[in-house]
């Protein structure tokens, strides 16, 4: 790294994103018609990619344990349903989740670094991260300092990611951009490259606390970035859209986007996740509809 000037020159030298064209491409991919066997395949894949999330001030150990149970056995009536990828909680509840998920192979994701605003001193963010990892988090979802990014202080954002990555130890690092606050697609592409260069294992759209959260075009741009980054460096970074993905239809649109942008190498939970909560039950509902030909009412699926 050649310091602030080099980083700035690099990020500003990336090819621009034409917003109209990117929106159009995402909209066109959204018209793909995924039916029958392809739909069944997509639903199971989507379930296995869910980071089942609860991020409320009112979260309790009881609530987290219930969510963990749901993640292990999403549909108690059907043992063939895959388990979810991870349970995503606030750092102080990471220990509860780790205990509940022991031996299941499901990841414990904790949103560290003063989620969701990220407005805290670096020491606090690092302490937050270390505490979560110590409590058993296997994945850390950090937020970037959007203020620094929008002020053009890319080096500050970069160094923070590097420091958090170090604090993560063996835990996987997902870097949240909060694209709803970065607004432009050029910013999304720059943030993607910045985070990947700083060592992110995943890049993630949103906290879910700001609207708009994940959108198809934003995810398209991030998928282009991870694809190009692998071409250049050989390292494959994952992508996680989060927030606002509620229906099976939405989830399948994201999978099509992955398939035709980054390619099939990203169609695994190791490299693509869906940050969601209510999505899971819609996936289960559609799965049963596909298998039995009839819809079951919402009471046939567990709340958490």
């Amino acid at each position: 790294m050649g310091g602030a000037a080099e980083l700035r020159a690099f990020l500003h030298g990336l090819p621009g994103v034409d917003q109209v064209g990117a929106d159009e491409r995402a909209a066109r991919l959204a018209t793909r018609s995924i039916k029958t066997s392809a739909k069944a395949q997509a639903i199971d894949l989507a379930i296995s990619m869910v980071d089942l999330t609860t991020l409320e001030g009112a979260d309790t150990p009881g609530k987290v344990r219930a969510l963990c149970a749901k993640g292990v056995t999403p549909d108690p009536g059907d043992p063939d349903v895959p388990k979810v990828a991870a349970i995503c909680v606030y750092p102080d509840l990471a220990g509860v989740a780790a205990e509940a998920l022991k031996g299941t192979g499901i990841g414990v994701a904790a949103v560290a670094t003063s989620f969701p605003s990220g407005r805290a001193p670096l020491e606090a963010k690092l302490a937050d991260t270390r505490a979560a990892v110590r409590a058993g988090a296997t994945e850390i979802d950090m937020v970037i300092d959007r203020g620094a990014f929008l002020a053009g202080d890319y080096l500050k954002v970069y160094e923070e990611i590097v420091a958090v990555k170090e604090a993560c130890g063996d835990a996987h690092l997902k870097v949240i951009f909060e694209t709803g606050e970065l607004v432009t697609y050029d910013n999304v592409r720059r943030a993607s490259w910045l985070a990947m260069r700083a060592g992110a294992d995943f890049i993630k759209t949103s906290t879910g606390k700001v609207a708009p959260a994940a959108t198809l075009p934003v995810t398209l741009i991030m998928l282009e970035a991870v694809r190009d980054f692998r071409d250049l460096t050989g390292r494959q970074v994952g992508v996680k859209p989060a927030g606002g993905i509620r229906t099976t239809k939405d989830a399948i649109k994201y999978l099509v986007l992955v398939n035709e942008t980054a390619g099939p190498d990203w169609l695994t939970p190791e490299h693509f996740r869906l940050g969601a909560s209510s999505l899971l039950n819609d996936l289960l509902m559609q799965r049963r509809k596909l298998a039995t030909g009839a819809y079951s009412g919402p009471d046939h699926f567990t709340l958490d």
Partner: protein
Amino acid sequence: MDFQYAPAPESRAVVDIRPSYGLFIGGEFVDGHGEPFKSIDPSNEEPLAEIACADAADVDRAVAAARAAYDGVWGTMPGRERAKYLYRIARILQERSRELAVLESIDNGKPIRESRDVDLPLVAAHFFYYAGWADKLGYAGFGPDPRPLGVAGQVIPWNFPLLMLAWKIAPALACGNTVVLKPAETTPLTALAFAEICRQADLPPGVVNIVTGAGDTGRALVEHDGVDKVAFTGSTEVGRRIARAVAGTRKKLTLELGGKAANVIFEDAALDQAVEGVVNGIFFNQGHVCCAGSRLLVQESVADELLDRLKRRMTTLRVGDPLDKNTDVGAINSAEQLAKIRALSEIGEREGATRWSPPCELPQRGFWFVPTVFTGVAQSHRIAREEIFGPVLSVLTFRTPAEAVEKANNTPYGLSAGVWTEKGSRILWMAERLRAGVVWANTFNKFDPASPFGGYKESGFGREGGRHGLEAYLNV
């Protein structure tokens, strides 16, 4: 993971293709007196229907019917009344759009995604747009009370059958003319469905007449003495013959002919979107587009990167059943066109250009051509000069903006061009210098009824669409 999309075919059940079709003259379907011919489904070569062929006497009757309707009802009807019919037609087109999209895809071979999302919405939009003009012609800039011309003889191509019909019929009718239209012999079915729509809309008999047939029928129509206006969209070669036939007569003429559009990509372009633009430019409608971006001019400093991205993108193109909702590239319209595309592609190889196509399994029956890109193409190669009218892209490079303009303009055609750059000033600089009727900036193949369309040089003359499109159908 390998994610295969299961077949998602649009149902054929929504269309009802009759075993045979007559000519539509004076509001009735009547027999033709030429040798009937068959329209086939180009995706499997199955015959679809037997189509009547109009001989000179049939054309004469159609022109007489159009004249009678012009003199008796349409030419004197107030614009606001004509507008009601056009609005009604537009609404019926929207209501029947699914059926018409399927029919278009079956007869033409284009993917249902395009007939559904591009052709049909534009068809209806054209009728809505010109319906709006019908009672406002006095405000279009052609005098306080511009008069129609009379009977228009219109000949349209097979690449956008119903859309080209809309481009021809909507402005003609809005201005108070009556029409005799000849659809292409390989794609007559949607025009015949449109004839039924005219009846459904209670359009007075004779205002729209459809005569089916091949070149002889078209010749009889454009050479007919009773025709006041000739409008043609198609090849430059046929356009020349029509211009000769019409020369020295009172007939007004507009021609929308071939093209060899340059799609110019500068090094500062948004590359991923530029790649999409290239794909939309040349593989949209199997490249059967007169304004297709068939010559890619890319700045040498980004040529390799852009081509890598383009090739990767081309491997995701889905070629196959036009009625599958996931198909991106459908069937070539006819055996004749397929032979022409093959011949020019072989010439491209012999001339020394490098040919590349993605791995792609084509159906056994029907007319198919895999999306193809030629690199290392020089201005002097035939594939850089002649219109291939298929999914074949010729890639050339340039060094400076001035060289880009020079190469882009170095063609006998001048229908359209594309410019890709993040620099607004360069877009304007290029647009001022490109000799093309349409210049798209950071997009390609975008159409709107309010926007005029037409060519320079051997791409023809006259404009269709927008306020400008009225001029061709008014006595000004």
